[in-house]
Each structure stands twice: as structure tokens, then as C-alpha cells.
């Protein structure tokens, strides 16, 4: 093998290794989105976002959902209608007033659960989280589905 061929081979191996390390770093070290440290995109009441979805779901999806799943971060005010835990032991707080057909279901995290635990039914609160899907009537379920927010934390009460 000539000197030139050897240099070319070493160069190819070097750039191949560099590309491999870069791809690995890009795929495996990308940090998960920290919803609570990011800025709120919209501040609104539970009834207003529900009404927005019921009036025009396509327009609301266009406004609030993102193609890569990193959808809008909302701060939603409302009355605590119910409180439960999911199968991942995360608190789920439903913000809904007595006249609304649907509410905003807010799922807390292992780190923020303690802030949901202290909330009482009927309390007026402001909760921040990322929206996952909107409200609407489903004829198969025969139910109104709630707006879904996750990665939630309590902003104030």
C-alpha cells in the first residue's frame, strides 16, 4: 500500500469515527424537554380552551399542537373538579367548572406530584404544562373528552 493510499484510508477511518460519535451524541444525549423551565406560550382559563376546541378543533390543533410533539406550553387557570392517580402514580388534576362540557386534565410528574397532593376540590389554581390533545365530543365513547396536558406543575393557588 502506497503512502498516499494509507493516508486516504486513515482519513476515511477518522471521519467515519467522527461521524459515528456525532450521530451517537445527537441521538442518545439529546435532553428531554424541560416544560417547566420553558416560557409559557398561552395563558388562559380551562373553559376558554375547551370552548375554543369545541368551536373549531382543526383551528385549535393548528394553534396548539406541533408536528414534532413539542406542542405549546400552557398556563391554565380553573377550578379543581377532581383529583386522581394514574397507573404511573402521577397525580391527575381535572380543571373544570360546573357549566363546561369538558375540562383540562393535568398530569403531574414524580417531581411535581407533591404540589398536586395538597390541592383541594373546588380550589382555584393556575397550572402549567404541555398540551397533548384537545377537547371534543366522541360519538363512540358518547362522552366529551378533556383537553390533555402533561408535565404539569402548580404555578399558584
Amino acid at each position, binding site marked *: 500500500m502506497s503512502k498516499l493510499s494509507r493516508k486516504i484510508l486513515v482519513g476515511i477511518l477518522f471521519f467515519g469515527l467522527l461521524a459515528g460519535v456525532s450521530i451517537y451524541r445527537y441521538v442518545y444525549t439529546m435532553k428531554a424537554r424541560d416544560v417547566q423551565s420553558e416560557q409559557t406560550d398561552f395563558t388562559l382559563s380551562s373553559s376558554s380552551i375547551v370552548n375554543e376546541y369545541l368551536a373549531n378543533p382543526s383551528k385549535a390543533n393548528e394553534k396548539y399542537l406541533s408536528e414534532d410533539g413539542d406542542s405549546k406550553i400552557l398556563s391554565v387557570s380553573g377550578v379543581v373538579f377532581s383529583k386522581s392517580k394514574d397507573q404511573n402514580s402521577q397525580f391527575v388534576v381535572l380543571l373544570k367548572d360546573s357549566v363546561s362540557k369538558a375540562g383540562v386534565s393535568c398530569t403531574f410528574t414524580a417531581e411535581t406530584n407533591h404540589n398536586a397532593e395538597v390541592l383541594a376540590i373546588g380550589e382555584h389554581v393556575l397550572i402549567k404544562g404541555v398540551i397533548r390533545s384537545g377537547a371534543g365530543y366522541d360519538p*363512540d365513547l358518547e362522552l366529551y373528552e378533556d383537553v*390533555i396536558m402533561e408535565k404539569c406543575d402548580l404555578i399558584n393557588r
Partner: protein
Amino acid sequence: MKYKLIPYLILLSVITLSSFRIPGAKLISRDVHINFFSHTALEDISADNYKAIATLEPITGEVVFSVPMQSFEFALPLMQKHFNSKDFLNTKKFPKSKFTGVIANLKEIDFSKNGSYNALVNGRLTIKDVSRNVSEKGVITIKYGLVSIVTKMKLTLADYKISFSKGKASTNLAKTIDITVSANFK
């Protein structure tokens, strides 16, 4: 003397009535866990979703699941982005997937009696606006009026026009994935 027994009789009635659900009332579950698992020689990929809603009608055997797709959470954020993207699930355009079905062997399930029952559910699964007939087995457990369903199914991505011809997903994602569903009804 007999009047003294009245409070106890009322208490007994309340306990009895709350232990056994009236057959026919539609059951609702907002306590659903769905796991997505893909295995290849290169990588195992798993995602969890805790935000689906389901209904079960004990008299007709009708079962419905509505699944918000952006609620699937992956260990690697980049995979979550790919999953939601236009090329894969296109969750902005199709934010929910749905299953509507009927329990085929409904006569074998006694919703008023504690026990575990094997169930066969036939129905239609809609993902990304593609609907296909599916038939899946599951276990329905009844314990003092509380009903839960657990099912494991295989899902071939190409059946729902989900496929990759290039990139990491084309090699690292299985063509057929495992879906596990667990729902607790009230």
C-alpha cells in the same frame, strides 16, 4: 328493639349495593396504560401512554378506546420527535387513534360475579386515518364491581401505512411491534 336494627340494615344495603355494579351501566376508564415495544437485534424501543380513555358497555359488550398520540413518552427524546413527525404518526394531523369493538364471547362473562374471564374482542383499529379489522384476546377481571381489562396484541406498522425506507428507524424499529393495554374501569 327492631328499630335499633334499621341503621345496621341501611349500612348493609349500602355496602351490598356499592360492591356490585348494576349490569348495563356504561363503565368508563380514565386510568389506562398503553405500552409500545419494538425489538430488533440493534435496539429495544419502548414508549408509554397513560392518557387514553376507554368505555365498556356490559350489556352489549361494546368497547371503545381513544388514545391521544402525543402522550406516548419515549426514553430518547429524538425517538419521540420521530414518532410524532409527518413521516411516522403525523400526530398533529391525527392527534388520536381509536379502537371500537365488541366482546364476541360476552355470554361467558358475568359482570356481577368476581373472577377473571378470557375475552375475544373483534373490532376496528384506526391509526393515522387508516382503519383495519382486528381480533384480539384479553383478560377481563371483575373484583367487587371494579372491572379491569388487560390485553397484548401485535401491530404491523405497514398495515397502517407507517413505514421507513431509510434512516435509523428503517433498521432499528421492528416491522411488527407489541402493544400492551391495561385499563381500570369505574
